[in-house]
């Protein structure tokens, strides 16, 4: 296991690279969901203030 974590001496490069990518992936998920949630709220708000033309 420790050999795996050591990555043949490249641990200081390999793990940060994976960490950065993982962070980007997770952040993208969070951002996307936040965008959807906010748009829903704004859409409902717009409906509530009665912009119902058309």
């Amino acid at each position, binding site marked *: 296991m420790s050999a795996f974590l050591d990555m043949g001496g490249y641990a200081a*490069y390999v793990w940060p690279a994976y960490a950065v990518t993982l962070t980007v992936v997770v952040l993208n998920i969070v951002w996307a969901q936040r965008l959807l949630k906010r748009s829903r709220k704004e859409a409902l708000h717009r409906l509530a203030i009665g912009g119902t033309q058309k």
Partner: protein
Amino acid sequence: MAWTWFHRLASPPHVYRLAGRLTPWLAWPAAVLIVAGLIGGLVLAPPDYQQGDGYRILYVHAPSAWMSLMVYTTMAVAAAIGLIWRMKVAHAVAASCAPIGASFTFAALVTGSLWGAPMWGTYWQWDPRLTSELILLFLYLGYMGLRSAFDDVQRADRVSAVLAIVGVVNVPIIHYSVIWWNSLHQAPSVMRLGKPTMPLPMLVPLLMMLLGFTLFFGALLLVRLRGEVLSRERAASWISEAVRP
């Protein structure tokens, strides 16, 4: 007949519902492929005879770099469709692409520099691949900056679409000019990706990661697209049905 299909596909309520229904179908395979690719890449694949375990950064760097270009292309194609056929949904796709692409371009830059560090002895080399990625990041930032400079979504959509198209014409020119520039000044890059001679246990996880990331992009795009479609719709009656749980 093809046109009715086209317009039905492009109608916001339809897109909103379809995107919602499709998302899990992309997200779960993406998750499975990425986990399998990680296991394959980090555990099962043998170390490289030259770069030892350091090459394993490939399994995150290559998908990120692939995303950076693929997303830009998607964005430009969507922008062109939006501009030519005045299709709001296409503009919504383009708008959804930019932050995803920019973040993966950033990841490609960081992982590339981390990969290069043990090989070059420094974190930054003016390597053609990294330099191109850096310029691509600037293109994304410019696109997002232009988009956010307008209050009116419609105008932001259309103006930034022109930029996306101009950018996509330029990307290959930039790429080849950077390679040309680099070949004058230093030895070729240490990052040789996806050589056909790559042994299968190394190649399979890479392909899984590439496919997994692509599907992941699809899922992200669909979620964002729903948000963008909602924000472009002005008080249409379908929203109340679609939004209320």
